[in-house]
């Protein structure tokens, strides 16, 4: 892993543009205004592979409001709305 994560700003994945690549720093379900409870959202994100240290890349965006986004998470691709992606802090 070549990224020196200390030097890059930490941002929520929900704000990342298409083509963004980074590494997950931590999950912060409280930041996302999701309809799910914090614990439920965090559990689901983990079950889909969003864990600390995973490499992410924003591959595609939807037409309306650039939402949802298709994110490469290590070796798989996950579609997620920006609202929930706000819980994923990357750098």
């Amino acid at each position, binding site marked *: 892993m070549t990224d020196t994560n200390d030097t890059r700003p930490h941002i929520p994945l929900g704000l990342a543009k298409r083509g963004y690549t980074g590494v997950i720093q931590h999950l912060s379900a409280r930041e996302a205004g999701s*309809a799910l409870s914090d*614990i*439920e959202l965090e*559990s689901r994100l983990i079950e889909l*592979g969003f864990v600390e240290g995973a490499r992410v890349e924003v591959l595609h965006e939807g037409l309306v409001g650039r*939402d*949802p986004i298709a994110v490469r998470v290590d070796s798989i*691709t996950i579609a997620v*709305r920006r*609202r929930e992606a706000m819980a994923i802090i990357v750098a």
Partner: protein
Amino acid sequence: MELPLLHLALVGTPNSGKTSLFNALTGSRQKVANYPGVTVERKEGFFVTPQGRQVSVVDLPGTYSLRGRSPDEEITRDFVLGKASGESVPDLVLCVADATNLRLTIRLLLELKRTGRPMVLVLNMFDIAARRGITVDVERLAKELGLPVVTSIAVRKGGTADLLRLTDEISAKIAAEAEANSWRALSVAELRATQREADRIIADCVSLPARPDTWTARIDAVVLHPVCGLMVLTLILFVMFQAVFAWAQPAMDLLKSSFDALGELVRATLPDGLLQSFLQNGVISGVGSVIVFLPQIILIFLFILLLEDFGYMARAAFLMDRIMGGAGLHGRAFIPLLSSFACAIPGIMATRVIDNKRDRLTTILIAPLMTCSARIPVYTLIISAFIPAKDVWGFINLQGLVMFGLYAAGIASALIVSFLIKFFMLRDYAPAPFMLELPDYKMPRLKSIAIGIYTRAKMFLVRAGTTIFSMMVLIWFLASFPQPPAGATEPAIDFSLAAIIGKALEPLLAPVGFNWQIAVALIPGMAAREVAVAALGTVYAIEGGKEAAEQIGQVLATKWSLATALSMLAWYIFAPQCASTLAVIRRETGSWTWMAVTFTYMLVLAYAASLLTYNVAVALGAG
């Protein structure tokens, strides 16, 4: 000595190729039913191992964890734990993984291990993994996980040989292996820890190529492009409906002429009378007129299954999420709604993938507006009788275009209804999350698709042979009795019960341009929409003699005005003409109220649409 049946359960994440493995193991020896008390589909199949052991295998709903967030996932959890009512504890759990994508499955597997059931990890699609340069150290993986690991290529002949051999080995010593269940719901910290553990094991045992699958990336560059992607989606749907209309025709003509010949044979062999009338008008022309639509139903399922196997369905949900969100629908509603084009019943049952109750309810309410395959017979009959088969703009078949228009009208009205529900009924609506794995594209496997179509076609034929058949007998009875008095000059049907019922309803339906024959046909249409076609056939056959039965389309063209035909089409877009759908809505929502709401709103829409269509058409001179 006969050994008892060995019970296997297939568990895995969505897209792990579970179903194709299930199909490979069992072929067509499958039984589809429901779990008691819930509406989760239970798929069980049977096979025999090389050593002759009889095995039953259950394909459990796909899940990422045992937390049981939805009825589907609860079934999977309870089944593995042996808590599902009326089910025996599985002797062996087969955890199925897509060998190209182990991350999520290994985490699930670590959780499954805690249940203490004897378990095997099946690395499915091993050929694809090898082709992509993914190497798995199977022995090391087995040692790390502490359970047997076997590779399989579900879609290739002999691709499951290792699995079968292992099943024999394990079944020999199975009793000794079961351990106590130590599973309980995992906390967030434990979930994270199991995912870390899974990632460590994968890092040790699997080497990934430097580049991910380039084909998927290349296809997605077009298919998920915000603008091109939607164009591709529209094109796919358009081709699908043109194909259903144009390609199925030769096969349908063949079926139709076979039934006509059969009817003719009956007429020639049997003496005139009730028995001849019953067989020819009631049974052969009735059931035949429904079975004729088998090619179209096969085609529509072919498209749906192909797109599903290819991996396109999840992309369609991605593209449609925000667009449907504007109408108050969840992206996941796309798949249930698309299935509703085949039949609203599996569509409504598929809404179980939507875990938010309100999103699910909205989807259930509008699913019956999607044009199901049972409407195809009605549409086809009326379109071919009234719409000329000419090309417009040189290449588009006008009949296909009208068909497409009817589908589009169904979709548009569904979106409007959904928007109104969101606006008036569920105002404090918070959008539920949309999270979905976009699997790598896979070449659809013909054998698996063939089995899927076979299962569906069988269900359709069984329905034609039972529900539809009994309705046809009823209609024939109503249309034939009481018999006309001696010396009557009017057609026999004028004296029948059917005419009495139809004429009683006629004043209600006259404003939308329906005559009493249509009123009679609509009643059995409640049992199954397509029966209306057969019922019309029977009514006009008994009224007009033998020629009418053979040329129902031509009879309609002479008896109905264009305005009536268009009104009938409009009616069929909306009408709640299907008792089984209403029953499923009642079961899935657990409430008579929502069933009544669905029935009422659809009936009101149907009447209004027909009224409008009829009057506009009459005003334009089509009366």
